[in-house]
């Protein structure tokens, strides 16, 4: 039966051909799948290296950018905040809304439709959730907000330019200027708001700017700021220094092209040079309790972060109020004489006009040198002996008065140097016979806490040392820890006061 054989043969041929074809197709399919996978892996690994530069500055992101279909997806919050947009998130509709300068963008997760000012736009790649973060297409959102996006293949970087058309305007703010005689003058100063590059000359200013979250605007600091705050205020360590606060390097400042200089002790000649060069100089002490809160609010206003300034000042104000009310209600009429010595030199005391005087007043203490007509008089030892103060408070700054760089403050690990300093103070002939030494009421406190924003903590410490009976339930260290955590984003360490109440 040749016919059947033929049919069978043909069938076999077809079958074989079909099999071959099928296996080929399968192989083909497998190959293409592998290719996609490989591509994706490559995308992922390369995406890990992608940099997103905004006006030459890299945007830091907590989640790596992802490449999908040749489009880069970036974390929503990072990109919008860098572009200066306000972001809100509606969980029920899975919609992210960003607003900037009157432009509103709405993106719905996993939807390729987006709205720009209510007008529908189609996305090549939808926004999606990846590792618990919302990722959005970089090009679309940047361009929608008016920025230009370029791809630098060599640097493997997305370059966004002209991004946050942050409108800078000029503000007139009030500065408090303390004259050498201790008088407070109020001056009006015109400053750009928000400033883009600020030269910061004061340690307390650097601290406040960190609290306002505007440390990225600081262009340069001083040696002192690095020495005194570098251990925990780390952003200052990566910045250039312009020298000292009183005689900074004018050429260096001008070369840095700042649009604002924050000063507290600059020589008038140098200030004039800067003003002539067209750089506004604003005086802010940051350590004078009398107008500290106003100064923080001024900085908040200038930097456009009034909200944070408000949280910060109300925190400080609230705690100060607590201390004041507690002492007032317990000892309404009391006044304790203290000999307060500055960290700078032996026998240097404080009077009206000094930064710490309002704090002492709040603690119902009176500096024995209060009425000498000078903010920082250097007094005669025998006079102090004759005044016989019942309390001695010494402000201690690392590097001064015989205490090394790690003797007090964030980096201090043992109070050995403070014990030695207290011993030295107590064995000074003029102090030996005072009530303060006889009753061992010689208190050492870090100058970081006796002045400035954290003087709240200093107030608690001193209040507890002076009036242990009414401050028994208060833990100054806990307040300090909270401030560090809440405003400076760091864990508290170190030794700040001696003896520990």
């Amino acid at each position, binding site marked *: 039966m040749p016919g059947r054989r033929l049919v069978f043969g043909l069938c076999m041929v077809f079958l074989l051909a079909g099999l071959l074809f099928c296996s080929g197709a399968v192989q083909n399919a497998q190959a293409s799948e592998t290719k996609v996978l490989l591509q994706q892996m490559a995308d992922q690994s390369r995406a890990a290296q992608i940099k997103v530069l905004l006006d030459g500055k890299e945007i830091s992101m907590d989640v790596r950018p992802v490449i999908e279909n040749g489009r880069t997806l970036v974390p929503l919050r990072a990109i919008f905040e860098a572009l200066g947009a306000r972001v809100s998130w509606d969980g029920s509709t899975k919609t992210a809304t960003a607003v900037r300068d009157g432009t509103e963008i709405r993106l719905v997760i996993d939807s390729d439709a987006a709205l720009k000012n209510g007008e529908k736009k189609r996305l090549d790649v939808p926004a999606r959730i990846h590792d618990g973060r919302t990722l959005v297409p970089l090009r679309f959102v940047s361009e929608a907000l008016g920025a230009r996006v370029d791809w630098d293949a060599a640097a493997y970087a997305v370059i966004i330019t002209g991004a946050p058309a942050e409108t800078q305007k000029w503000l007139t703010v009030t500065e408090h200027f303390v004259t050498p005689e201790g008088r407070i003058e109020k001056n009006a100063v015109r400053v750009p708001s928000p400033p883009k590059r600020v030269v910061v000359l004061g340690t307390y200013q650097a601290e406040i700017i960190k609290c306002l979250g505007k440390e990225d605007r600081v262009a340069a600091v001083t040696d002192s700021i690095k020495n005194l705050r570098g251990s925990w205020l780390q952003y200052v360590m990566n910045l250039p220094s312009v020298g000292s606060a009183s005689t900074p390097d004018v050429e260096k400042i001008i070369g840095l092209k700042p649009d604002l200089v924050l000063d507290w002790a600059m020589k008038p000649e140098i200030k004039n040079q800067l003003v002539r060069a067209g750089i506004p100089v604003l005086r802010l002490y940051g350590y004078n309790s009398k107008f500290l809160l106003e100064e923080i609010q001024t900085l908040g206003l200038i930097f456009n972060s009034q909200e944070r300034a408000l949280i910060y000042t109300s925190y400080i104000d609230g705690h100060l109020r607590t201390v004041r009310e507690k002492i007032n209600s317990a000892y309404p009429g009391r006044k304790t004489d203290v000999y307060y010595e500055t960290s700078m030199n032996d026998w240097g005391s404080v009077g009206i006009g000094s930064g710490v005087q309002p704090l002492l007043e709040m603690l119902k203490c009176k500096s024995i040198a209060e009425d*000498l007509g000078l903010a920082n008089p250097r007094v*005669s030892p025998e*006079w102090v*002996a004759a005044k016989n103060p019942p309390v001695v408070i010494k402000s201690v*700054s690392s590097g001064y008065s015989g205490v090394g*760089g790690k003797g007090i403050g964030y980096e201090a690990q043992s109070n050995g140097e403070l014990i030695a300093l207290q011993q030295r103070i107590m064995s000074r002939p003029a102090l030996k016979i005072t009530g303060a030494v006889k009753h061992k009421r010689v208190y050492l406190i870090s100058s970081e806490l006796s002045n400035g924003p954290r003087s709240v903590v200093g107030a608690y410490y001193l209040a507890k040392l002076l009036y242990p009976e009414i401050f028994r339930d208060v833990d100054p260290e806990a307040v300090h820890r909270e401030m560090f955590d809440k405003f400076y984003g760091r864990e508290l360490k170190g030794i700040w006061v001696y003896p520990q109440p």
Partner: protein
Amino acid sequence: MGVPATVAEAAAPGGPAEIREIYSRYTARKILLLAGLGILLAGMGLFASTTGAAAIGVADVWRVVAGKVVPGYSLAPASELAGTVVWELRIPRIFLAVLTGMSLAGAGAVMQGLLRNPLVCPYTLGLSGGAAFGAALAIVLGKNILGGYFNIAGNYIIVTNAFFFGCLTMLFVYAISRLKGGVPETLLLGGVAIGYLFSAGVSALKYISNEEALKDLVVWLMGGLWGASWETVMLLFPLVVVCMTVLLRYAWDLNALGAGEEVAASLGVNVRRLRLVCLILATLAASGTIAFTGIIGFVGLVGPHICRFIIGGDNRFLIPCACIAGGALLLLADTMARTVFSPVEVPVGILTSLIGAPFFIYLLIKKKRRYWS
């Protein structure tokens, strides 16, 4: 004492007996003047011990001092405050002021005589500059190198370094002048040059130092006596007294040198040795005090000149006179520094010049005779 008598006999007309009488009257007057100045200084010291920011009665001051000085004296003891203020604060400070004034003015007088130049003083010879550089080096580098340990031994290091560099400068300047055969001008110019070199060094250290070190440095350079304590006084007292006493023994040789090196040599003075020994002694005394007090100008230069007006150029009287007057000037200045704006203290350097300069100018105008031969 034989040599000057013969010189006087040979130079002056009239009989030897008459001259001797005139001379002894002349000397007696000077000795009287010295004694008077000494009493004045003592009086000022007593006055200074009774004045100060702490109101302590004169009787209390006496009681404290008598109780400490007179053995077995046991009157009703004064208050603890009076005891501490008078005995541990005022008196060491008075002593330190007097010792510093003495050593600076005494050293100035000797140096002026040695180099026969009215502009010489510890300052112009580079000594103060050297000491300042030593202190600056200790303050700036000490803090950097030793860190926390510097705070424990810091003061000793500053003092030792200031003293060491003060002496080193003098030796260096002397070595330079020896190369040129010990000509006084070379010594002076060498000193001025070294002084500038060190002040450049101090400026450089100021420039590179951070603000903390700078502050300490500025305080040291300004000078002051608030560091006074019995330990300091006990250390400086023998040094200053020994140096000045030995220098007084060379007063005759210095007088001879005043007439010229050849004359001195012909009178048997070993000029080179005289220069070396006197320079070393003056340097030791001046460096020692500068190391503790910081730079205090004016006293070393003008103190001796004021004394030349008062007592003449005879070194036998000039050196003790300069010591007493220098001590008195600095004591007066320091007492004013701590009392004028009491209880606020003023840097003493401001007052030494403020008191001394007008007085010196007054003497310059009033005296017609050229006092510097």
